[in-house]
C-alpha cells in the first residue's frame, strides 16, 4: 500500500462520499467544541490532524504551528493569573498562556476537522446548491484557462476570459435546450467535478466515493472523538 499524498487522496476519494464526510464532521464537531479538558481536546486535534493526513489533504505543520504561536502570543499580551516568568517588563502568566493554548488548539482543531471532512465535491441541496454547482463548473473552466490570464494585461485578459465563458455557456444552453427538446423530461446537468487540495478533476477521475469500509472508518473516527469527550468528562 502506498502512502504518498496522491495515493492517500485517491484512497480517500474512493472510500468516502463528500456527503458522508460532511455528516461525520457535523457529528464530531460538538464532541470537540464542548470538550472541557485541554489535554483531551489536544488529543482530538491530533485525531483530526491524522485524518487530514489520511485523506491526503495538504497540511503544513509550519503554518499550523505559526498560527498557533500567533494566537498564544497575542493572548500573552494581556496578563492574568500566576506569573510564570518574566523577560524585563513582559510577564508570562499562567492564565493567559493556558487560555492562549486552549484557543489555539480549538481554532486549529476546527480547521483540521473542516479540512478532513469538507470536500469540494459536496453537493448542497436545493436551488442554492444548484447555483453553487454552476459556479463550481465555471470555476473548473477558469482553472483550465487560467494560463490565459496575462499579467501584463490583467484587465483585458480577464475580460476575454469572461466573454469566452459566457459565449460557451450560451452555446451549451442552446445545445442543452435542443437535447432536452429531443430527449424529453429528466435530462440532468453535468455534476460538480472537483476534488483534491484545491485541485479539480473531471468526474471520471473520481472513485465511487462511498463504501462500507469508508462508512466504518468514519463511524470509528466519530466514536473515537466522542470517546475522548466522554473520557474528559468522566476522568
Amino acid at each position, binding site marked *: 500500500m502506498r502512502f504518498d499524498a496522491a495515493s492517500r487522496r485517491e484512497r480517500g476519494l474512493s472510500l468516502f462520499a463528500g456527503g458522508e464526510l460532511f455528516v461525520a464532521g*457535523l457529528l464530531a464537531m460538538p464532541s470537540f467544541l464542548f470538550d472541557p479538558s485541554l489535554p483531551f481536546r489536544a488529543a482530538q486535534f491530533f485525531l483530526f490532524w491524522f485524518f487530514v493526513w489520511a485523506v491526503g489533504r495538504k497540511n503544513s505543520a509550519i503554518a499550523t504551528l505559526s498560527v498557533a504561536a500567533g494566537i498564544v502570543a*497575542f493572548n500573552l499580551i494581556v496578563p492574568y493569573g500566576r506569573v510564570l516568568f518574566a523577560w524585563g517588563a513582559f510577564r508570562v502568566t499562567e492564565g493567559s498562556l493556558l487560555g492562549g493554548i486552549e484557543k489555539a488548539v480549538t481554532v486549529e482543531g476546527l480547521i483540521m476537522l*473542516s*479540512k478532513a471532512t469538507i*470536500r469540494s465535491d459536496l453537493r448542497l441541496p436545493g436551488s442554492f446548491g444548484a447555483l*453553487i454547482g*454552476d459556479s463550481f*463548473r465555471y470555476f473548473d*473552466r*477558469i482553472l483550465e484557462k487560467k494560463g490565459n490570464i496575462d499579467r501584463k494585461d490583467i484587465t483585458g485578459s480577464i475580460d476575454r476570459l469572461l466573454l469566452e465563458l459566457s459565449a460557451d455557456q450560451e452555446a451549451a444552453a442552446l445545445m442543452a435546450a435542443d437535447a432536452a427538446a429531443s430527449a424529453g423530461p429528466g435530462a440532468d446537468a453535468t455534476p460538480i467535478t472537483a476534488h483534491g487540495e484545491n485541485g479539480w478533476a473531471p468526474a471520471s477521475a473520481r472513485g465511487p466515493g462511498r463504501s462500507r469500509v469508508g462508512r466504518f472508518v468514519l463511524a470509528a473516527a466519530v466514536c473515537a472523538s466522542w470517546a475522548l469527550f466522554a473520557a474528559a468528562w468522566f476522568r
Partner: protein
Amino acid sequence: MTMPSMQQPGKERDTVALLGAFCLFLSTIEYMIPKPLPFMRLGIANLPLMIAIDLLPAPAYFLLAAIKTVGQGLVSGSLFSYVFPFSLAGTFASALLMFGLRRILGSARIGFVGIGVIGALASNLTQILLARAFVFGESAKYVAPPFLAAGLATGLALGLFCESFVSRSEWYARRLR
C-alpha cells in the same frame, strides 16, 4: 441615483454563477497567500462583488455574497471552522455597506475606490470584533491597526482595479445592457 438592474432572470442567474466562480478563483489565490491568522484575509475575492454592484438587483447580489462565502468554505475546507463565521460576517457586512451606499448615493457620489475602501474596512472591522470576542480578547486592539491598514491598502487597490475594469470591459458593458 439608482443603478440600472439589467438582466433577464436567466442572464442574471448566469452572471451570479460566473461571478461566483471568480470569487472561488480569487479565494483560491488568496488561500495561497501566507497570513498571520487564517481568517485574516486580504479580501481580493471581494472584487466580483464590487463588479456586480451595478449589474445585479439586491437579492441576486446577496446570493452572490452567499456563494462567495460558502464556496470559500468548500474550496479551503474551512466550513466547520471559526474561519467560516468570520468570513460570513465580514462578507455580508461589506456587501451590505457597499451595495447600500452605491444605491443611496449613486455612482456620481461614490466610485469604486470609495466602495472598495469602505467594503474592506467594514469586513476587517467586523472580523476584528469577532476576533476580540472569540480568539484574542483585549489583545485584539494590537492586531487591529495593521489589519485595518492592510484592508485600506487592498480596498484602494481593488477599487482602482475595478474602476479600470468596468470602464474597459466589453463583458461588463454587454451585461449592463
